[in-house]
């Protein structure tokens, strides 16, 4: 059935953002074979970074989770562009990388990155289950609280 994932997005009340343009001399995604490599996405909406700051300091876990969700929606927007607009071409999410701007003694990185993982599984169901890592970063571009990158498998 065409538009299965689009229907799911509608059901979830999710309107995908327009995939943000890169801030420099690179591209938002590259496809190699059946793998789509998505560049690191920060919590941008309408051209503005919505969640800045440092977990363990100025940002609570709940906000970190919301930031990760927004990053994930930007990831999905890029994957949609990579699929020529047809998200039904997604075979699965292979891997998410979660980077959390945090203090040296912060430990709740997984809870923050769950904001991205849960979003991907909500949208893609079993095909959304992925390998993942979550690390603390000393800082992130433009002061972002979270950054997420991804590898997706897509069909021709």
């Amino acid at each position, binding site marked *: 059935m065409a538009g299965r994932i689009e229907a799911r997005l509608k059901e979830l009340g999710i309107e995908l953002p327009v995939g943000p343009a890169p801030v420099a*001399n690179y591209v938002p995604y*590259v496809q190699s074979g059946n793998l789509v490599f998505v560049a*690191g996405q920060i919590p941008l909406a309408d051209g503005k970074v919505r969640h800045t700051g440092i977990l363990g300091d100025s940002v609570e876990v709940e906000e970190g989770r919301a930031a990760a969700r927004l990053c994930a929606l930007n990831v999905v927007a890029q994957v949609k562009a990579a699929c020529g607009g047809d998200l039904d071409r997604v075979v699965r999410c292979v891997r998410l990388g979660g980077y959390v701007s945090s203090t040296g003694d912060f430990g709740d990185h997984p809870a923050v990155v769950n904001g991205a993982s849960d979003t991907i599984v909500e949208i893609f169901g079993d095909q959304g289950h992925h390998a993942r890592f979550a690390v603390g970063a000393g*800082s992130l571009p433009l002061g972002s609280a979270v950054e997420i*990158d991804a590898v997706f498998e897509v069909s021709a």
Partner: protein
Amino acid sequence: MPGTIDAKLAELGINLPVGASPVASYVMSATVGRLVHLAGHGPRQADGTLVKGRLGENLAVEDGAQAARLVGLGLLATLRDACGGDLDRVGRCVRLYGLIRCTPEFTAHATVMNGASDLMVEVFGDAGLHARTTIGARALPSGIAVEIEGLFELC
């Protein structure tokens, strides 16, 4: 006859360094199918020393970008080794992952990382355009300012 990319490097006045050696029990590149995975590289200068320092503290953004460019040259040297000396076998740069050693307040990660990204586009043209992730690191091996790992696709 030198290859197309070798000619491009000559035109740009770029002399690639000798490919780096790993500092532990790993290799600098691993090729799987058409994908070449490059290990994290540091900014090695012509005299063999590393660019050390911390952005936002004792290293200016331009110096960081220059360090990132040096890392890019090291990646290309390893890539050339992985291609049996023939960079014309490179189809494209797929992804760069950059770690910038900096203060928590630092925000110009993208500008620093451009040193490497711009180099790839200079050398490979459109095939040098890649997906990219850049983060700030509190510490990096040996105190280096920038570390980058790369993923390339062969023709």
